[in-house]
């Protein structure tokens, strides 16, 4: 295989990985964020007390997270077909990726919000803030650095997960590595894929860290 062919294959796969990670990351985080906020604020005596609902959602989140991803991909094929009209291809792969992202991100959001000093919530209540104002003006604002770190972690995990959706013909870098590198005995392709993935993860991590740092005003020195 010529170098040009290899590069063109890698670029195509990189595009697919990018598409899957970006779309499922965005959708999953958007849905996971409110669920995480709810999990962190709906315990007994908290902002939106609903301990029963909290426990049920917690159970669903745990169940989803403990299902091995590759099994989930296969198990939800009917749902995937219902949503995208097909069960194979990059678009179809976005469905299980999104569903796996939601509980993952939700738990990270929950942890980020629980980190916030309860004194800040009390101060906001003493100012006459509504629970919604507390969520938007206090919790989300204060958790911003931690949320940014959570988003980075989610994106990095997604890059790993996206390698597995080759099983449903999702394409992407992982799929390329397996099909060419392993099944067609092209160690140079395997190596190239691994290097590209490493670089990709590094870039995502560095960008995420930089953003998180810029949000973080806790350790500023004069």
């Amino acid at each position: 295989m010529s170098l040009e062919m290899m590069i063109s294959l890698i670029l195509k796969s990189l595009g697919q990985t990018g598409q899957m990670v970006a779309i499922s990351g965005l959708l999953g985080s958007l849905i996971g964020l409110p669920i995480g906020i709810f999990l962190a604020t709906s315990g007994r005596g908290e902002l939106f007390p609903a301990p029963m609902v909290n426990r049920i959602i917690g159970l669903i989140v745990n169940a989803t997270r403990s299902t091995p991803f590759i099994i989930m991909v296969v198990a939800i094929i009917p749902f995937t077909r219902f949503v995208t009209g097909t069960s194979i291809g990059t678009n179809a792969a976005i469905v299980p990726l999104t569903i796996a992202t939601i509980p993952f991100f939700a738990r990270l959001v929950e942890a980020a919000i629980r980190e916030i000093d309860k004194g800040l919530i009390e101060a906001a209540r003493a100012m006459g803030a509504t629970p919604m104002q507390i969520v938007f003006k206090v919790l989300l604002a204060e958790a911003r650095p931690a949320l940014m770190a959570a988003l980075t972690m989610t994106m990095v995990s997604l890059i790993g997960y996206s390698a597995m959706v080759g099983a449903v013909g999702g394409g992407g870098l992982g799929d390329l590595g397996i099909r060419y590198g392993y099944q067609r005995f092209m160690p140079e392709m395997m190596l190239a894929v691994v290097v590209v993935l490493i670089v990709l993860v590094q870039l995502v991590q560095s960008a995420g860290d930089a953003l998180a740092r810029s949000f973080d005003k806790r350790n500023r020195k004069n």
Partner: protein
Amino acid sequence: MTIQQAAARTAPGADHSAGVSAVPMVAFEGVGKRFGPAGEGGFTALADIDLTVARGAITGIIGRSGAGKSTLIRLVNGLEKATTGKVIVDGIEVGGLGEDSLRGLRRQIGMIFQHFNLLSSRTAFDNVALPLEIAGVDKAVIKAKVGPLLDLVGLGDKANRYPSELSGGQKQRVGIARALATDPKLLLSDEATSALDPETTQSILELLKRINAELNLTVLLITHEMEVVKTIASHVAVIDAGRIVESGRTFDVYANPSHETTRTLLASALNLPEWLRNSIKQVPSAGDRVLVRLVFFGETAFKPLTGRLVAELGSDVNILAGGIEEIGGEPFGSLVVSYSADPAVVARAEQFYAETGLTTEVLGYVA
């Protein structure tokens, strides 16, 4: 806006002395608070609290940690709900308010905290703006309001600093400016100086005193430090194990403590030297000397009584500690002396106290 303008707006035409009127700003009527289940499993935090907070005054509630003072102050703005009795703020019963009206009331009550509770993600300016944003105040109005508030607390040049760039005292000043943002009629202070060093504590107390006088703002503070109460509170209530054990004018309580807890709290404020505090015994052994605190105030403050006491008891009087300070604007002297525990000497001393009207308290015995 200058302080004077702010004061004029908060209380038109009222001067400070006229501000202390008969209708209390806060009244607790038979208030009790229990946490947890009724009966065995629960915990009684407060019981039978009857207390009023005078309008325009600074009232201190003092007690050891766990005495219930945090719960008590949180009843005022409804952060905690009383189990029994009524908490009445400016004529409104807090317990009877729905969520919406409670939020309305909270916007009229400022609160400052031991750990400041500033948002780390907001600058000093934006922290002070927060209660105004919450109240839905127009952006332009907020902008015009926050600057003068920061000036008032002496942080006009720190508007764009984040809390992590400020010292503890500066953070509390931001906290105070934030608490004043919505022009409250009452300021609650929850151990506001307990995390600060003595010098910073004094400057924060001075600021609170100034705000109280210039804005005619009623202040209710809780603390475990007698020093704080002594410095700024005109009235004090002592709380112990969920009950108010003593209350009144700070000077009276200080000069004549009637409850054991008050005495203990006072003892730590007496500034007895470490070696002396550690060597006090409650039961004398042979050859020990009595340790007595003499208190001078009112009439006795101006008489040369110490010299006469020495003359009366012979040269056997040892002065160990003492000082003159100002409490509630009145001079208050205290002198710790020791003399022989011989019954004849003690009797002579007591007769002398009775004749002169000197207030005394036996602190214990020392070798």
